[in-house]
Protein backbone atom coordinates (compact mmCIF):
# COMPACT_ATOMS: atom_id res chain seq x y z
CA UNK A 1 0.00 0.00 0.00
CA UNK A 2 2.91 2.33 0.61
CA UNK A 3 3.91 1.79 -3.01
CA UNK A 4 1.31 4.25 -4.14
CA UNK A 5 3.08 6.99 -2.21
CA UNK A 6 6.14 6.44 -4.37
CA UNK A 7 4.19 5.96 -7.60
CA UNK A 8 1.46 8.57 -7.83
CA UNK A 9 -1.75 7.24 -9.28
CA UNK A 10 -2.10 8.47 -12.84
CA UNK A 11 -5.69 7.69 -13.72
CA UNK A 12 -7.14 10.95 -12.46
CA UNK A 13 -6.81 14.24 -14.26
CA UNK A 14 -4.23 16.65 -12.82
CA UNK A 15 -7.07 18.96 -11.81
CA UNK A 16 -8.52 16.32 -9.49
CA UNK A 17 -6.89 17.39 -6.25
CA UNK A 18 -8.74 15.38 -3.62
CA UNK A 19 -10.09 12.04 -4.77
CA UNK A 20 -12.17 9.48 -2.91
CA UNK A 21 -11.88 6.35 -4.97
CA UNK A 22 -14.76 3.87 -4.56
CA UNK A 23 -14.68 4.27 -0.79
CA UNK A 24 -17.31 2.49 1.27
CA UNK A 25 -17.98 1.78 4.91
CA UNK A 26 -19.86 -1.12 6.43
CA UNK A 27 -20.45 -1.95 10.05
CA UNK A 28 -21.17 -5.64 9.95
CA UNK A 29 -24.16 -5.98 7.63
CA UNK A 30 -25.00 -2.28 7.78
CA UNK A 31 -23.75 -0.25 4.86
CA UNK A 32 -23.19 3.27 6.14
CA UNK A 33 -21.67 4.16 2.81
CA UNK A 34 -21.96 2.26 -0.44
CA UNK A 35 -18.91 2.38 -2.70
CA UNK A 36 -18.72 5.83 -4.22
CA UNK A 37 -16.15 8.02 -5.90
CA UNK A 38 -15.82 11.76 -5.68
CA UNK A 39 -13.17 14.22 -6.75
CA UNK A 40 -12.57 17.83 -5.82
CA UNK A 41 -10.66 20.37 -7.87
CA UNK A 42 -8.10 22.51 -6.11
CA UNK A 43 -9.72 25.55 -4.47
CA UNK A 44 -13.24 24.22 -4.88
CA UNK A 45 -15.92 24.13 -2.20
CA UNK A 46 -18.03 20.98 -2.41
CA UNK A 47 -20.93 20.28 -0.07
CA UNK A 48 -22.21 16.89 1.05
CA UNK A 49 -25.93 17.39 1.58
CA UNK A 50 -28.45 14.93 2.92
CA UNK A 51 -30.70 13.93 5.80
CA UNK A 52 -29.17 12.41 8.90
CA UNK A 53 -27.89 8.90 8.38
CA UNK A 54 -27.23 9.40 4.67
CA UNK A 55 -23.51 8.76 5.07
CA UNK A 56 -22.26 12.32 4.52
CA UNK A 57 -20.42 12.51 7.83
CA UNK A 58 -18.99 9.03 7.33
CA UNK A 59 -17.52 10.14 4.01
CA UNK A 60 -16.03 13.26 5.59
CA UNK A 61 -14.50 11.22 8.39
CA UNK A 62 -12.99 8.80 5.91
CA UNK A 63 -11.35 11.74 4.15
CA UNK A 64 -10.17 13.11 7.50
CA UNK A 65 -8.77 9.72 8.50
CA UNK A 66 -10.93 9.26 11.60
CA UNK A 67 -12.76 6.37 9.99
CA UNK A 68 -10.97 3.76 7.92
CA UNK A 69 -12.86 2.90 4.72
CA UNK A 70 -14.01 -0.69 4.29
CA UNK A 71 -12.97 -0.48 0.65
CA UNK A 72 -11.36 2.15 -1.56
CA UNK A 73 -8.82 4.84 -0.86
CA UNK A 74 -8.38 8.58 -0.51
CA UNK A 75 -5.89 10.36 -2.74
CA UNK A 76 -4.56 13.89 -2.39
CA UNK A 77 -2.64 15.30 -5.34
CA UNK A 78 -2.25 11.72 -6.53
CA UNK A 79 -0.80 10.47 -3.25
CA UNK A 80 -2.63 7.73 -1.34
CA UNK A 81 -3.55 8.99 2.12
CA UNK A 82 -5.45 5.92 3.25
CA UNK A 83 -2.74 4.45 5.53
CA UNK A 84 -1.97 7.81 7.18
CA UNK A 85 -3.42 8.68 10.60
CA UNK A 86 -5.38 11.97 10.84
CA UNK A 87 -2.44 13.77 12.44
CA UNK A 88 -0.33 13.19 9.33
CA UNK A 89 -2.91 14.29 6.75
CA UNK A 90 -2.69 18.06 7.27
CA UNK A 91 -6.38 18.59 6.89
CA UNK A 92 -7.99 21.36 8.91
CA UNK A 93 -11.28 20.39 10.47
CA UNK A 94 -14.12 22.37 12.01
CA UNK A 95 -16.64 20.37 14.00
CA UNK A 96 -20.33 20.68 14.68
CA UNK A 97 -19.76 20.64 18.43
CA UNK A 98 -17.71 23.44 19.89
CA UNK A 99 -14.22 22.03 19.82
CA UNK A 100 -11.92 24.76 21.15
CA UNK A 101 -9.60 23.55 23.90
CA UNK A 102 -11.25 25.01 27.01
CA UNK A 103 -7.98 25.54 28.85
CA UNK A 104 -6.39 27.62 26.10
CA UNK A 105 -7.12 31.19 25.06
CA UNK A 106 -8.38 31.91 21.54
CA UNK A 107 -4.88 32.68 20.30
CA UNK A 108 -3.36 29.65 22.00
CA UNK A 109 -6.03 27.53 20.36
CA UNK A 110 -5.12 28.92 16.95
CA UNK A 111 -1.42 28.53 17.78
CA UNK A 112 -1.84 24.88 18.85
CA UNK A 113 -1.31 23.34 15.42
CA UNK A 114 1.67 25.60 14.77
CA UNK A 115 3.35 24.67 18.06
CA UNK A 116 2.77 20.97 17.44
CA UNK A 117 4.42 21.37 14.05
CA UNK A 118 7.35 23.25 15.59
CA UNK A 119 6.75 26.55 13.79
CA UNK A 120 8.95 29.31 15.23
CA UNK A 121 7.47 31.82 17.63
CA UNK A 122 7.98 34.76 15.28
CA UNK A 123 6.46 33.01 12.33
CA UNK A 124 3.46 31.77 14.29
CA UNK A 125 2.95 35.27 15.68
CA UNK A 126 2.76 36.63 12.15
CA UNK A 127 0.36 33.87 11.13
CA UNK A 128 -1.88 34.56 14.14
CA UNK A 129 -2.07 38.20 13.24
CA UNK A 130 -3.12 37.40 9.69
CA UNK A 131 -5.72 34.86 10.78
CA UNK A 132 -7.37 37.02 13.42
CA UNK A 133 -7.55 39.82 10.88
CA UNK A 134 -9.09 37.40 8.39
CA UNK A 135 -11.86 36.34 10.74
CA UNK A 136 -12.22 39.86 12.16
CA UNK A 137 -11.83 38.88 15.79
CA UNK A 138 -8.63 40.67 16.82
CA UNK A 139 -10.23 41.85 20.04
CA UNK A 140 -10.97 38.29 21.15
CA UNK A 141 -7.41 36.95 20.96
CA UNK A 142 -6.85 36.74 24.70
CA UNK A 143 -10.31 35.44 25.56
CA UNK A 144 -11.10 31.91 26.62
CA UNK A 145 -13.69 29.74 24.88
CA UNK A 146 -16.26 30.14 27.68
CA UNK A 147 -16.03 33.91 27.20
CA UNK A 148 -16.93 33.66 23.51
CA UNK A 149 -20.31 33.31 21.83
CA UNK A 150 -21.05 30.22 19.73
CA UNK A 151 -20.43 32.10 16.50
CA UNK A 152 -17.11 33.47 17.76
CA UNK A 153 -16.03 30.01 18.86
CA UNK A 154 -16.72 28.59 15.43
CA UNK A 155 -14.80 31.45 13.81
CA UNK A 156 -11.81 30.76 16.07
CA UNK A 157 -12.14 27.07 15.22
CA UNK A 158 -12.02 28.03 11.55
CA UNK A 159 -8.88 30.11 12.12
CA UNK A 160 -7.33 27.24 14.06
CA UNK A 161 -8.02 24.84 11.20
CA UNK A 162 -6.58 27.31 8.68
CA UNK A 163 -3.46 28.00 10.75
CA UNK A 164 -1.76 24.82 9.65
CA UNK A 165 -2.32 25.85 6.00
CA UNK A 166 -4.30 22.68 5.45
CA UNK A 167 -4.31 20.95 2.11
CA UNK A 168 -8.02 20.41 2.56
CA UNK A 169 -10.49 22.09 4.89
CA UNK A 170 -13.20 19.83 6.29
CA UNK A 171 -16.31 21.37 7.79
CA UNK A 172 -18.72 19.05 9.59
CA UNK A 173 -22.00 20.97 9.98
CA UNK A 174 -20.13 23.89 11.55
CA UNK A 175 -23.24 26.08 11.64
CA UNK A 176 -25.90 23.75 12.94
CA UNK A 177 -25.46 24.62 16.62
CA UNK A 178 -25.87 28.34 15.95
CA UNK A 179 -28.86 30.70 15.98
CA UNK A 180 -30.48 31.61 12.67
CA UNK A 181 -29.04 35.14 12.33
CA UNK A 182 -25.52 34.04 13.30
CA UNK A 183 -25.77 31.06 10.98
CA UNK A 184 -26.43 33.31 8.00
CA UNK A 185 -23.56 35.65 8.85
CA UNK A 186 -21.06 32.88 9.47
CA UNK A 187 -22.14 31.09 6.31
CA UNK A 188 -21.16 34.11 4.25
CA UNK A 189 -18.01 34.50 6.32
CA UNK A 190 -16.88 30.94 5.67
CA UNK A 191 -17.47 31.36 1.95
CA UNK A 192 -15.46 34.59 1.91
CA UNK A 193 -12.57 33.16 3.90
CA UNK A 194 -12.55 30.02 1.76
CA UNK A 195 -12.34 32.13 -1.39
CA UNK A 196 -9.65 34.43 0.00
CA UNK A 197 -7.45 31.55 1.12
CA UNK A 198 -8.30 29.37 -1.88
CA UNK A 199 -8.51 26.30 0.35
CA UNK A 200 -10.07 23.20 -1.15
CA UNK A 201 -13.05 22.55 1.08
CA UNK A 202 -15.46 19.74 1.83
CA UNK A 203 -18.54 20.96 3.70
CA UNK A 204 -21.15 18.71 5.31
CA UNK A 205 -24.66 19.95 6.00
CA UNK A 206 -28.26 18.80 6.21
CA UNK A 207 -29.55 22.28 5.38
CA UNK A 208 -30.35 22.58 1.70
CA UNK A 209 -30.37 26.36 1.64
CA UNK A 210 -26.92 26.41 3.25
CA UNK A 211 -25.66 23.97 0.65
CA UNK A 212 -27.05 25.99 -2.25
CA UNK A 213 -25.72 29.26 -0.89
CA UNK A 214 -22.17 28.22 -0.16
CA UNK A 215 -21.15 25.61 -2.71
CA UNK A 216 -19.40 25.41 -6.03
CA UNK A 217 -20.83 21.93 -6.33
CA UNK A 218 -23.26 19.94 -4.21
CA UNK A 219 -23.35 16.19 -3.63
CA UNK A 220 -26.83 15.15 -2.52
CA UNK A 221 -26.64 11.90 -0.60
CA UNK A 222 -29.34 9.40 0.25
CA UNK A 223 -28.94 6.18 2.21
CA UNK A 224 -25.20 5.91 1.64
CA UNK A 225 -25.40 6.67 -2.07
CA UNK A 226 -24.88 9.76 -4.21
CA UNK A 227 -28.34 10.84 -5.33
CA UNK A 228 -27.03 13.71 -7.44
CA UNK A 229 -23.84 15.66 -8.00
CA UNK A 230 -23.94 19.07 -9.60
CA UNK A 231 -23.92 22.84 -9.24
CA UNK A 232 -26.53 24.36 -6.93
CA UNK A 233 -28.56 25.33 -10.01
CA UNK A 234 -28.45 21.76 -11.35
CA UNK A 235 -29.59 20.34 -8.08
CA UNK A 236 -32.41 22.79 -7.69
CA UNK A 237 -33.65 23.11 -11.24
CA UNK A 238 -32.88 19.69 -12.62
CA UNK A 239 -33.21 17.26 -9.71
CA UNK A 240 -32.23 13.76 -10.76
CA UNK A 241 -34.73 11.94 -8.60
CA UNK A 242 -37.92 12.50 -6.65
CA UNK A 243 -35.83 12.39 -3.48
CA UNK A 244 -33.66 15.32 -4.59
CA UNK A 245 -36.67 17.26 -5.87
CA UNK A 246 -38.42 16.98 -2.54
CA UNK A 247 -35.38 17.38 -0.29
CA UNK A 248 -34.03 20.50 -1.99
CA UNK A 249 -36.38 23.45 -1.80
CA UNK A 250 -40.16 23.33 -1.73
CA UNK A 251 -41.95 21.64 -4.59
CA UNK A 252 -45.50 20.77 -5.50
CA UNK A 253 -45.18 17.08 -6.31
CA UNK A 254 -47.96 15.58 -8.41
CA UNK A 255 -48.58 12.18 -9.93
CA UNK A 256 -48.95 12.49 -13.68
CA UNK A 257 -49.08 10.37 -16.80
CA UNK A 258 -47.20 11.12 -20.03
CA UNK A 259 -49.40 11.64 -23.08
CA UNK A 260 -46.46 11.78 -25.48
CA UNK A 261 -45.23 14.83 -27.37
CA UNK A 262 -44.37 16.73 -24.20
CA UNK A 263 -47.88 16.67 -22.80
CA UNK A 264 -48.70 15.31 -19.36
CA UNK A 265 -51.98 14.67 -17.66
CA UNK A 266 -52.73 15.07 -13.97
CA UNK A 267 -55.70 13.15 -12.60
CA UNK A 268 -58.57 15.49 -11.82
CA UNK A 269 -57.36 18.28 -14.11
CA UNK A 270 -59.57 18.91 -17.12
CA UNK A 271 -56.86 19.49 -19.67
CA UNK A 272 -53.32 18.24 -20.20
CA UNK A 273 -50.27 20.37 -19.49
CA UNK A 274 -47.40 21.07 -21.87
CA UNK A 275 -44.08 20.33 -20.19
CA UNK A 276 -40.92 20.51 -22.27
CA UNK A 277 -39.08 18.00 -20.08
CA UNK A 278 -41.76 15.35 -20.68
CA UNK A 279 -40.89 14.90 -24.38
CA UNK A 280 -38.67 11.84 -23.88
CA UNK A 281 -41.36 9.90 -22.07
CA UNK A 282 -43.64 7.52 -23.95
CA UNK A 283 -47.40 7.77 -23.79
CA UNK A 284 -48.77 6.12 -20.67
CA UNK A 285 -45.61 6.29 -18.61
CA UNK A 286 -46.17 7.18 -14.98
CA UNK A 287 -44.43 10.38 -14.04
CA UNK A 288 -43.87 12.59 -11.10
CA UNK A 289 -44.45 16.25 -11.94
CA UNK A 290 -42.80 18.93 -9.82
CA UNK A 291 -43.93 22.56 -9.89
CA UNK A 292 -41.76 25.06 -8.00
CA UNK A 293 -44.00 27.40 -5.96
CA UNK A 294 -42.00 30.51 -6.91
CA UNK A 295 -42.41 29.82 -10.63
CA UNK A 296 -46.20 29.84 -10.59
CA UNK A 297 -47.79 33.11 -11.75
CA UNK A 298 -51.33 33.97 -10.74
CA UNK A 299 -53.77 36.27 -12.43
CA UNK A 300 -57.36 36.91 -11.52
CA UNK A 301 -59.94 35.09 -13.61
CA UNK A 302 -62.80 37.45 -14.30
CA UNK A 303 -66.31 35.97 -14.16
CA UNK A 304 -66.68 36.04 -17.93
CA UNK A 305 -63.50 33.95 -18.29
CA UNK A 306 -64.75 31.32 -15.92
CA UNK A 307 -66.44 29.40 -18.62
CA UNK A 308 -63.04 28.59 -20.09
CA UNK A 309 -61.85 25.07 -19.57
CA UNK A 310 -59.94 24.41 -16.33
CA UNK A 311 -56.73 24.41 -18.29
CA UNK A 312 -56.39 27.16 -20.85
CA UNK A 313 -55.10 26.65 -24.36
CA UNK A 314 -51.53 27.72 -23.49
CA UNK A 315 -51.28 25.11 -20.76
CA UNK A 316 -52.45 27.51 -18.06
CA UNK A 317 -54.52 26.17 -15.21
CA UNK A 318 -57.41 27.69 -13.40
CA UNK A 319 -58.18 27.29 -9.74
CA UNK A 320 -59.27 28.97 -6.55
CA UNK A 321 -57.19 30.55 -3.80
CA UNK A 322 -57.98 28.63 -0.60
CA UNK A 323 -55.45 29.89 1.92
CA UNK A 324 -52.77 32.53 2.32
CA UNK A 325 -49.81 32.67 4.65
CA UNK A 326 -47.75 35.80 4.98
CA UNK A 327 -44.11 34.78 5.42
CA UNK A 328 -42.45 38.19 5.11
CA UNK A 329 -40.60 38.43 1.84
CA UNK A 330 -43.05 36.03 0.24
CA UNK A 331 -46.72 35.22 0.68
CA UNK A 332 -47.65 31.57 0.24
CA UNK A 333 -51.01 30.95 -1.40
CA UNK A 334 -52.75 27.62 -1.62
CA UNK A 335 -54.56 27.20 -4.90
CA UNK A 336 -57.06 24.40 -5.45
CA UNK A 337 -56.71 23.07 -8.99
CA UNK A 338 -58.95 20.11 -9.76
CA UNK A 339 -58.53 17.99 -6.68
CA UNK A 340 -54.90 18.94 -6.06
CA UNK A 341 -53.74 21.83 -3.92
CA UNK A 342 -50.84 23.80 -5.35
CA UNK A 343 -48.67 26.08 -3.30
CA UNK A 344 -47.63 29.32 -4.98
CA UNK A 345 -45.10 31.73 -3.49
CA UNK A 346 -45.59 35.35 -4.48
CA UNK A 347 -42.88 37.83 -3.71
CA UNK A 348 -43.40 41.16 -2.01
CA UNK A 349 -46.84 42.61 -2.35
CA UNK A 350 -48.05 40.59 -5.35
CA UNK A 351 -50.29 38.43 -3.19
CA UNK A 352 -52.38 41.44 -2.19
CA UNK A 353 -54.21 41.11 -5.51
CA UNK A 354 -55.36 37.56 -4.71
CA UNK A 355 -57.63 37.29 -1.67
CA UNK A 356 -58.77 33.91 -0.43
CA UNK A 357 -61.70 32.67 -2.53
CA UNK A 358 -60.59 34.36 -5.73
CA UNK A 359 -60.71 32.40 -8.99
CA UNK A 360 -57.28 32.57 -10.57
CA UNK A 361 -55.45 31.52 -13.68
CA UNK A 362 -52.16 29.77 -12.86
CA UNK A 363 -49.45 30.11 -15.48
CA UNK A 364 -46.17 28.29 -15.39
CA UNK A 365 -42.94 30.14 -16.07
CA UNK A 366 -40.51 28.25 -18.35
CA UNK A 367 -38.56 26.77 -15.43
CA UNK A 368 -41.60 25.92 -13.32
CA UNK A 369 -42.12 22.28 -14.23
CA UNK A 370 -39.80 19.32 -13.97
CA UNK A 371 -40.79 15.73 -14.61
CA UNK A 372 -39.22 12.51 -13.44
CA UNK A 373 -40.08 8.89 -13.90
CA UNK A 374 -42.24 8.00 -10.91
CA UNK A 375 -40.26 6.16 -8.23
CA UNK A 376 -41.93 3.65 -5.98
CA UNK A 377 -43.65 6.12 -3.68
CA UNK A 378 -42.67 4.28 -0.52
CA UNK A 379 -38.99 4.90 -1.20
CA UNK A 380 -39.12 8.67 -1.30
CA UNK A 381 -41.67 8.87 1.47
CA UNK A 382 -39.61 6.77 3.83
CA UNK A 383 -36.68 9.12 3.34
CA UNK A 384 -38.68 12.27 3.92
CA UNK A 385 -41.03 11.07 6.61
CA UNK A 386 -39.53 12.74 9.63
CA UNK A 387 -42.66 13.82 11.44
Amino acid at each position, binding site marked *: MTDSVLFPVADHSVADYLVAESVSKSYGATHALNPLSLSLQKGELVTLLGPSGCGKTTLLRIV*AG*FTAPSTGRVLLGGRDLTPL*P*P*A*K*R*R*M*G*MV*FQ*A*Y*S*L*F*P*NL*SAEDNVR*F*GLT*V*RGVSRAESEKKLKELFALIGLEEARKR*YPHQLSGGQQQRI*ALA*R*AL*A*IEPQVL*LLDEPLSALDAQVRLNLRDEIRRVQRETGTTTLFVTHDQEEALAISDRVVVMQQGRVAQLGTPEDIYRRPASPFVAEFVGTANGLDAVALGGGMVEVAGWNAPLAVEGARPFARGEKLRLYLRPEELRLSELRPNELRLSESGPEGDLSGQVTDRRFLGSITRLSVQVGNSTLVADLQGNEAAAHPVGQQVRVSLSPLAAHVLRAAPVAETQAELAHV
Partner: protein
Amino acid sequence: MRASPVVRTGRNLWITVLGLYFFVPLVALAVFSLWAGGSRYDFSAYVQILRDPQFHQTFRLSLLLALETILISLALVIPAAFWVNLRAPGLRNLLGLLSVLSFVVPPIVLVGGLSSLFRGPVLGPEWFVGTPQFLVVGYVVLALPYTYRTLDTGLRALDLQTLSEAAQSLGAGWGTLLWRVILPNITSALLGAALLTFAIVLGEFTFANVLLFNTFAVYINYIGQTQGTPAAALSLISLAITWMAMLGLLRFGKGRVALGGAK
Protein backbone atom coordinates in the same frame (compact mmCIF):
# COMPACT_ATOMS: atom_id res chain seq x y z
CA MET B 1 -41.07 32.90 43.15
CA ARG B 2 -44.02 32.77 45.48
CA ALA B 3 -43.70 29.42 47.23
CA SER B 4 -46.73 27.74 48.68
CA PRO B 5 -46.77 27.33 52.50
CA VAL B 6 -46.26 23.58 52.10
CA VAL B 7 -43.16 24.14 50.01
CA ARG B 8 -41.84 26.71 52.43
CA THR B 9 -42.37 24.37 55.37
CA GLY B 10 -40.63 21.61 53.48
CA ARG B 11 -37.71 23.86 52.75
CA ASN B 12 -37.31 24.88 56.36
CA LEU B 13 -37.62 21.30 57.47
CA TRP B 14 -34.79 20.24 55.19
CA ILE B 15 -32.55 23.08 56.23
CA THR B 16 -33.18 21.98 59.81
CA VAL B 17 -32.39 18.35 59.04
CA LEU B 18 -29.21 19.36 57.25
CA GLY B 19 -28.21 21.50 60.18
CA LEU B 20 -28.86 18.65 62.60
CA TYR B 21 -26.98 16.21 60.39
CA PHE B 22 -23.87 18.30 59.95
CA PHE B 23 -23.51 20.83 62.69
CA VAL B 24 -25.14 19.62 65.87
CA PRO B 25 -22.83 16.59 66.21
CA LEU B 26 -19.84 18.79 65.50
CA VAL B 27 -20.81 21.38 68.09
CA ALA B 28 -21.62 18.76 70.69
CA LEU B 29 -18.34 17.01 69.96
CA ALA B 30 -16.45 20.27 70.25
CA VAL B 31 -18.08 21.08 73.57
CA PHE B 32 -17.31 17.62 74.87
CA SER B 33 -13.70 17.80 73.70
CA LEU B 34 -13.21 20.89 75.85
CA TRP B 35 -14.76 19.27 78.90
CA ALA B 36 -12.21 18.71 81.66
CA GLY B 37 -14.43 17.08 84.27
CA GLY B 38 -17.11 18.70 86.42
CA SER B 39 -17.92 22.08 84.96
CA ARG B 40 -14.39 22.99 83.86
CA TYR B 41 -13.62 23.40 80.15
CA ASP B 42 -10.11 23.78 78.70
CA PHE B 43 -7.77 22.66 75.91
CA SER B 44 -5.96 20.00 77.92
CA ALA B 45 -7.28 17.14 75.74
CA TYR B 46 -5.90 18.84 72.61
CA VAL B 47 -2.55 19.45 74.25
CA GLN B 48 -2.36 15.81 75.26
CA ILE B 49 -3.08 14.58 71.74
CA LEU B 50 -0.75 16.98 69.99
CA ARG B 51 2.10 16.05 72.35
CA ASP B 52 1.62 12.31 71.80
CA PRO B 53 4.47 11.01 69.55
CA GLN B 54 2.14 8.20 68.43
CA PHE B 55 -0.11 10.84 66.86
CA HIS B 56 2.70 12.19 64.68
CA GLN B 57 4.10 8.79 63.84
CA THR B 58 0.84 7.18 62.75
CA PHE B 59 -0.27 10.30 60.90
CA ARG B 60 3.00 10.39 58.92
CA LEU B 61 2.62 6.71 58.02
CA SER B 62 -0.95 7.16 56.80
CA LEU B 63 0.07 10.23 54.83
CA LEU B 64 2.81 8.29 53.06
CA LEU B 65 0.47 5.41 52.29
CA ALA B 66 -2.11 7.87 50.96
CA LEU B 67 0.38 9.47 48.59
CA GLU B 68 1.54 6.08 47.29
CA THR B 69 -2.05 4.98 46.78
CA ILE B 70 -2.90 8.18 44.93
CA LEU B 71 0.03 7.87 42.55
CA ILE B 72 -0.55 4.20 41.79
CA SER B 73 -4.29 4.47 41.30
CA LEU B 74 -4.05 7.57 39.09
CA ALA B 75 -1.39 5.90 36.96
CA LEU B 76 -3.70 2.91 36.53
CA VAL B 77 -6.94 4.76 36.02
CA ILE B 78 -6.09 7.76 33.82
CA PRO B 79 -5.22 5.71 30.73
CA ALA B 80 -8.09 3.29 31.35
CA ALA B 81 -10.73 5.99 31.73
CA PHE B 82 -9.32 7.91 28.77
CA TRP B 83 -9.34 4.85 26.57
CA VAL B 84 -12.82 3.75 27.61
CA ASN B 85 -14.30 7.18 26.99
CA LEU B 86 -12.59 7.71 23.68
CA ARG B 87 -12.46 4.32 22.03
CA ALA B 88 -14.87 2.02 23.77
CA PRO B 89 -17.82 3.95 25.16
CA GLY B 90 -19.69 0.67 24.94
CA LEU B 91 -17.45 -0.67 27.68
CA ARG B 92 -18.38 2.21 29.93
CA ASN B 93 -21.46 0.48 31.29
CA LEU B 94 -19.46 -2.65 31.98
CA LEU B 95 -16.79 -0.72 33.85
CA GLY B 96 -19.45 1.23 35.70
CA LEU B 97 -20.98 -2.07 36.79
CA LEU B 98 -17.59 -3.44 37.82
CA SER B 99 -16.87 -0.33 39.84
CA VAL B 100 -20.20 -0.72 41.62
CA LEU B 101 -19.42 -4.39 42.16
CA SER B 102 -16.25 -3.45 43.92
CA PHE B 103 -18.08 -0.88 46.05
CA VAL B 104 -19.99 -3.91 47.04
CA VAL B 105 -16.97 -5.94 48.10
CA PRO B 106 -16.93 -5.18 51.82
CA PRO B 107 -13.42 -4.22 52.94
CA ILE B 108 -13.61 -6.90 55.59
CA VAL B 109 -14.09 -9.52 52.88
CA LEU B 110 -11.34 -7.99 50.80
CA VAL B 111 -8.81 -8.01 53.60
CA GLY B 112 -9.86 -11.49 54.61
CA GLY B 113 -9.33 -12.69 51.09
CA LEU B 114 -6.07 -10.85 50.68
CA SER B 115 -4.54 -11.96 53.93
CA SER B 116 -5.63 -15.57 53.64
CA LEU B 117 -4.18 -15.53 50.13
CA PHE B 118 -0.86 -14.22 51.34
CA ARG B 119 -0.70 -16.52 54.30
CA GLY B 120 -2.07 -19.42 52.32
CA PRO B 121 -0.71 -21.47 49.46
CA VAL B 122 0.39 -18.44 47.43
CA LEU B 123 3.04 -16.92 49.68
CA GLY B 124 3.83 -13.27 49.14
CA PRO B 125 7.45 -12.20 49.53
CA GLU B 126 8.14 -11.69 53.21
CA TRP B 127 9.86 -8.30 52.74
CA PHE B 128 6.65 -7.00 51.14
CA VAL B 129 3.93 -8.67 53.20
CA GLY B 130 5.77 -7.64 56.36
CA THR B 131 5.82 -3.85 55.71
CA PRO B 132 2.91 -1.44 55.88
CA GLN B 133 3.41 -0.91 52.09
CA PHE B 134 1.44 -4.13 51.78
CA LEU B 135 -1.61 -2.08 52.76
CA VAL B 136 -1.25 -0.02 49.58
CA VAL B 137 -2.38 -3.04 47.53
CA GLY B 138 -5.67 -3.14 49.40
CA TYR B 139 -6.02 0.63 49.41
CA VAL B 140 -5.57 0.84 45.65
CA VAL B 141 -8.31 -1.77 45.23
CA LEU B 142 -10.53 0.15 47.65
CA ALA B 143 -9.87 3.50 45.98
CA LEU B 144 -10.05 2.38 42.33
CA PRO B 145 -13.81 2.64 41.93
CA TYR B 146 -13.87 6.15 43.39
CA THR B 147 -10.92 7.24 41.30
CA TYR B 148 -12.41 5.71 38.19
CA ARG B 149 -15.83 7.23 38.69
CA THR B 150 -14.45 10.68 39.44
CA LEU B 151 -12.18 10.72 36.38
CA ASP B 152 -14.91 9.23 34.22
CA THR B 153 -17.27 12.03 35.24
CA GLY B 154 -14.58 14.59 34.50
CA LEU B 155 -13.85 13.12 31.08
CA ARG B 156 -17.50 12.78 30.22
CA ALA B 157 -18.01 16.48 30.79
CA LEU B 158 -15.37 17.19 28.13
CA ASP B 159 -16.65 15.99 24.74
CA LEU B 160 -13.48 13.98 24.60
CA GLN B 161 -14.01 12.74 21.08
CA THR B 162 -14.30 16.14 19.48
CA LEU B 163 -11.34 17.54 21.42
CA SER B 164 -9.22 14.52 20.55
CA GLU B 165 -10.12 14.67 16.90
CA ALA B 166 -9.49 18.40 16.80
CA ALA B 167 -6.05 17.89 18.34
CA GLN B 168 -5.26 15.04 15.97
CA SER B 169 -6.34 16.95 12.90
CA LEU B 170 -3.94 19.69 14.03
CA GLY B 171 -1.13 17.15 14.06
CA ALA B 172 -1.00 16.18 17.73
CA GLY B 173 0.04 12.65 18.72
CA TRP B 174 -1.36 10.69 21.67
CA GLY B 175 1.17 12.14 24.13
CA THR B 176 0.49 15.75 23.17
CA LEU B 177 -3.21 15.02 23.27
CA LEU B 178 -3.06 13.59 26.79
CA TRP B 179 -0.66 16.12 28.28
CA ARG B 180 -1.65 19.33 26.55
CA VAL B 181 -5.35 18.82 25.94
CA ILE B 182 -6.90 16.24 28.24
CA LEU B 183 -5.12 16.47 31.59
CA PRO B 184 -5.21 20.30 31.81
CA ASN B 185 -8.98 20.11 31.38
CA ILE B 186 -9.66 17.57 34.10
CA THR B 187 -7.50 19.01 36.88
CA SER B 188 -10.46 19.31 39.20
CA ALA B 189 -11.43 15.68 38.62
CA LEU B 190 -7.81 14.66 39.26
CA LEU B 191 -7.74 16.67 42.47
CA GLY B 192 -11.09 15.24 43.50
CA ALA B 193 -9.90 11.69 42.93
CA ALA B 194 -6.71 12.36 44.84
CA LEU B 195 -8.65 13.86 47.70
CA LEU B 196 -11.13 11.02 47.99
CA THR B 197 -8.27 8.55 47.97
CA PHE B 198 -6.50 10.57 50.66
CA ALA B 199 -9.62 10.55 52.82
CA ILE B 200 -10.23 6.86 52.30
CA VAL B 201 -6.68 5.88 53.21
CA LEU B 202 -6.51 8.20 56.19
CA GLY B 203 -9.72 6.80 57.63
CA GLU B 204 -9.35 3.15 56.66
CA PHE B 205 -9.43 1.12 59.86
CA THR B 206 -10.35 -2.43 58.88
CA PHE B 207 -7.32 -3.36 56.79
CA ALA B 208 -4.75 -1.94 59.13
CA ASN B 209 -6.47 -3.36 62.18
CA VAL B 210 -6.76 -6.85 60.78
CA LEU B 211 -3.25 -6.83 59.34
CA LEU B 212 -1.87 -5.30 62.56
CA PHE B 213 -0.26 -2.13 61.23
CA ASN B 214 -0.36 0.97 63.37
CA THR B 215 -1.94 3.58 61.05
CA PHE B 216 -3.67 6.80 61.96
CA ALA B 217 -7.11 5.18 61.98
CA VAL B 218 -5.88 2.48 64.33
CA TYR B 219 -4.47 5.15 66.60
CA ILE B 220 -7.82 6.99 66.56
CA ASN B 221 -9.56 3.78 67.50
CA TYR B 222 -7.07 3.11 70.29
CA ILE B 223 -7.61 6.57 71.78
CA GLY B 224 -11.36 6.23 71.30
CA GLN B 225 -11.41 2.93 73.20
CA THR B 226 -9.28 4.13 76.06
CA GLN B 227 -9.75 7.83 76.68
CA GLY B 228 -12.85 10.06 76.67
CA THR B 229 -12.30 13.69 75.89
CA PRO B 230 -8.99 13.16 74.05
CA ALA B 231 -10.94 10.94 71.64
CA ALA B 232 -13.34 13.77 70.91
CA ALA B 233 -10.44 16.17 70.50
CA LEU B 234 -8.68 13.74 68.16
CA SER B 235 -11.87 13.29 66.14
CA LEU B 236 -12.06 17.03 65.64
CA ILE B 237 -8.37 17.32 64.84
CA SER B 238 -8.54 14.62 62.18
CA LEU B 239 -11.72 16.11 60.72
CA ALA B 240 -9.95 19.45 60.58
CA ILE B 241 -6.93 17.89 58.86
CA THR B 242 -8.91 16.18 56.13
CA TRP B 243 -11.22 19.13 55.57
CA MET B 244 -8.35 21.57 55.45
CA ALA B 245 -6.59 19.34 52.94
CA MET B 246 -9.71 19.19 50.87
CA LEU B 247 -10.49 22.88 50.95
CA GLY B 248 -6.84 23.61 50.18
CA LEU B 249 -6.94 21.35 47.17
CA LEU B 250 -10.26 22.77 46.04
CA ARG B 251 -8.90 26.28 46.32
CA PHE B 252 -5.78 25.23 44.48
CA GLY B 253 -8.00 23.68 41.84
CA LYS B 254 -10.04 26.85 41.52
CA GLY B 255 -6.84 28.84 41.46
CA ARG B 256 -5.53 26.79 38.57
CA VAL B 257 -8.68 27.37 36.63
CA ALA B 258 -8.72 31.09 37.42
CA LEU B 259 -5.04 31.31 36.55
CA GLY B 260 -5.81 29.60 33.27
CA GLY B 261 -8.67 32.00 32.72
CA ALA B 262 -6.60 35.13 33.27
CA LYS B 263 -3.26 34.13 31.80
